[in-house]
């Protein structure tokens, strides 16, 4: 026992040391040596373009322009880099410069963003990020010209988060585009971005965004800290980060929210949250996350409050149905028949007469069938997807009932859950899991089993925190002031305070009421999403 423990501890210790820092290597003054070094580093990749050229006033010194095909904007490189460099007239005034690179940078190139680097690895990094490198023989430095430009997707409405009214734009895979989208929403100097690179091999750019003055500084510090602690090989999506920095890595429930919508992120920042952008993915995480956020949709704030409130209630109802309906059905059908009104009971009995399996098995089985059909429908190419749904719905459901394998009520319940699950997309995973567990519990111990499961879930949820904020807030602990945006969706002018536990450094959004004389509306267009 002790030995095992000791071994584990030692392993953990070793783990900590693993990030190997490669030896630092500086550029040499010799151009050829540098070029060889580059080729060594990157291999003989065909997309590595090395364009030799002569720089400076006659006779000039040898130089090279290096870039990676596909990562740069050819237009920029040709027009703004190559053309000025090759135009002999440009060199007229620089007859006696010693620092050729500096002169080029200062007076010749028509590129906005550039920097000088002396270390090989940094230069290679820049190269791989889409910079164009300018090397000059005799100088142990390189000029990194920002000529990034690659094919990217246009701004579209995210498919997973459709809304009816409101802005129809979504984030793209490009970090810069995304930050710009956010800037367009919040035009205040308080919007700060901080960038860092994560992932040993992918060197993915990560940006955190927050609204200074509204955000709790400690929260930003905590986010920074957690991000820095990450030691990972590669990051391809926001979820990679999320599994690292989430408070409860084993929980079914997500303690970070994700969205592809700039308006949602803007609203969250305005509540005092922090957003985490990951380059290469349109998904943006915001923290701290609360359970109730999953039940809020941007449309809630784009529609009149009474309608939004009603819709929100339907969402709560749908989620409870999605999670509980099969379990309750099983519990009622195989334990608590006395609770069913008599006529319904007789109808149910007629419908299930002669089915061979216990109700619990029937429901779990049909539930699995449905999940598989759904997964198949998602993965398959669209034309196949339709076939799948027809086969699934008609053949399996209908035939199973006529063959007497399952009762028709089971199919109805499964169909109901199938639809209601999708009303709250943020909790799709937990919903399916809980449904399965509750159904089994309901089949084993009836309503008592379901209650045990629900208490377990409640305790678990109550023990969760997301970046210090209780996950169940404002329901447990109850925060009456915040219920205005949870139980109902109060009119926008009444949503005058930010969520207590998140926006406490600046709790008030605006003075109460809908008086027009305060022209503060610009800042508080809408609330969370």
């Amino acid at each position, binding site marked *: 026992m002790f030995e095992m423990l000791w071994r584990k501890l030692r392993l953990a210790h070793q783990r900590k040391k693993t990030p190997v820092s490669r030896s630092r290597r500086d550029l040499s003054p010799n151009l050829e040596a540098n070029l060889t070094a580059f080729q060594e580093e990157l291999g003989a990749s065909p997309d590595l373009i090395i364009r030799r050229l002569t720089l400076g006033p006659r006779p000039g010194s040898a130089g090279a322009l290096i870039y990676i095909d596909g990562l740069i904007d050819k237009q920029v490189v040709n027009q703004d880099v190559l053309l000025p460099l090759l135009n002999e007239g440009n060199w007229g005034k620089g007859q006696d410069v010693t620092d050729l690179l500096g002169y080029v940078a200062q007076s010749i190139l028509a590129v906005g963003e550039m920097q000088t680097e002396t270390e090989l690895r940094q230069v290679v990094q820049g190269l791989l990020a889409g910079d164009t490198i300018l090397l000059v023989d005799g100088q142990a430095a390189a000029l990194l010209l920002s000529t990034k430009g690659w094919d990217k997707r246009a701004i579209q409405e995210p498919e997973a988060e459709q809304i009816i009214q409101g802005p129809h734009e979504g984030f793209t895979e490009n970090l810069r585009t995304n930050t710009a989208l956010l800037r367009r929403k919040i035009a205040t100097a308080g919007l700060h971005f901080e960038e860092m690179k994560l992932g040993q091999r992918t060197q993915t750019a990560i940006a955190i965004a927050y609204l200074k003055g509204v955000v709790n500084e400690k929260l930003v510090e905590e986010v920074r800290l957690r991000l820095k602690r990450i030691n990972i090989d590669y990051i391809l999506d926001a979820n990679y980060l999320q599994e690292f920095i989430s408070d409860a890595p084993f929980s079914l429930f997500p303690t970070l929210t994700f969205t592809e919508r700039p308006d949602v992120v803007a609203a969250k920042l305005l509540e005092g949250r922090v957003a985490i952008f990951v380059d290469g993915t349109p998904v943006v995480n915001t923290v701290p996350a609360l359970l109730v956020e999953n039940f809020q949709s941007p449309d809630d704030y784009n529609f009149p409050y009474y309608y939004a409130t009603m819709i929100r209630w339907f969402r709560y109802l749908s989620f409870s149905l999605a999670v509980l309906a099969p379990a309750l059905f099983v519990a009622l059908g195989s334990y608590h028949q006395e609770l069913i009104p008599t006529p319904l009971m007789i109808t*149910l009995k*007629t419908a299930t007469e*002669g089915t061979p399996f*216990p109700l619990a098995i029937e429901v779990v089985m049909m539930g699995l069938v449905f999940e598989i059909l759904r997964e198949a429908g998602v993965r398959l190419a669209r034309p196949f997807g339709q076939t799948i749904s027809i086969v699934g719905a008609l053949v399996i459901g209908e035939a199973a009932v006529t063959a007497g394998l399952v009762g028709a009520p089971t199919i109805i319940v499964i169909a109901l859950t199938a639809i209601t699950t999708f009303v709250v997309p943020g909790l799709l995973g937990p919903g399916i899991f809980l449904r399965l567990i509750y159904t089994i519990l309901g*089949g084993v111990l*009836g309503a008592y089993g379901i209650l045990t499961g629900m208490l*377990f879930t409640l305790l678990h949820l109550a023990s969760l925190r997301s970046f210090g904020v209780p996950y169940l807030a404002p329901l447990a602990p109850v925060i009456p002031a915040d219920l205005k945006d949870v139980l109902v969706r109060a009119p926008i002018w009444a949503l005058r305070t930010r969520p207590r536990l998140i926006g406490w450094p600046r709790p008030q959004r605006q003075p109460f009421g809908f008086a027009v004389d305060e022209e503060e509306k610009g800042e508080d267009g809408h609330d969370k999403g």
Partner: protein
Amino acid sequence: MTKANDAGRRRLWWKKSLWLLLLFIMVFTSGCWDRRELENLAVVLGMGLNHTPGGEGYEVSFQIVRAAQIKSPGVSSGGGEKMRPFWILRSSGPTVFEAIRNATFQSSRRLFLSHSQVLVINEAVAREGLTPALDFFIRDHEPRLSLWLLLTAEDPVQIFDASAGLEMVSSQAISDLLQQYHLTSKIRPVRLAEYVRLIMAKTTANTLPVIRTIENAGKKEFYFEGTGVIKGDKLVGFLDPIETRGLLWVLGEVQGGVITFDVPGKKGKATLEIFTSSSTVTVQVKADKIHVKIEVQVRSGLGNQTTYTDLSTPDQFKKLETRQAEVIKGEIEAALAKAREYGADIFGFGQQLYGHDNRAWQRLAADWERHFREATVEIKVKAVLVELGLTTRPVLD
């Protein structure tokens, strides 16, 4: 939260998985003792209680739904003769519970009593005392207190066997019918809960509706007629429908029905429809003599007339009202006379006293039967006619 180091996290991990494991062990080890599948239940809709032919024990009869027969009767399983949608089962035993359990020998499925709606009790059982017979239904968790209690002189099976009319199962029909008692107000439906409540009131006597079968066009049909009076827990006598309504007037439970009488001074009858009625009963004790004041208020409307006179004039209305009050008073008096005859306080005068003058009740309760018989009862009926229907006078007058 964040201070957990790597080793800690790993330990956390297997601890967490252990919790899940525990949950699953719990799920799969504890298992399904009380599970009873819907399709394996024999849903009992009605129960009957009788003495075994020999004597001592009880014979319980059940009316069980045959669910398969209810399902789309048109497309029933290819050509086989159509079975009735229920099954009648009898079993007997020394106590009710044992009789019910003995039914398991005959039924392939477990009897499920929670949905039973009516309990038909044979008069012989009622005459011997209902407490031992009904104890099971109160004690056990399956039958409900909302069970309707009925008395019958016949074998309860006859009732279940009767035609159910528009319903599938006669028990369901009886239950539905009892809930519409106010259309006639000539029976007093009693749920098990009400029965227990009155039994516990000690001085109050219970009443149970009486059901019997009649032959109608070659078919048996059930029919309600009158009320059985249960003194203590034993059946002592019956009230006819009119007396039953007399009882209902006093209890303030007449919520409908019609009342027919001769139009004063004219040849022919008038039928009034009762809309609402209410009653106030005050019981006073003076020198250990009981004075009861019953005030009944009735609102009704003219529903039918067989005279050729115009009854819609105010003074005709007045006359009708007085006449109606007299008739109601007569009904109450008839009920009172019967109750005095049986010495059974079916009106709950004792209960009234118990609530309002508990000391007096405690003094008198021991000899309540005598006090009840000797009580002076003052009846006041205030009848108001408020409606005429759609016409004023008869077509031809």
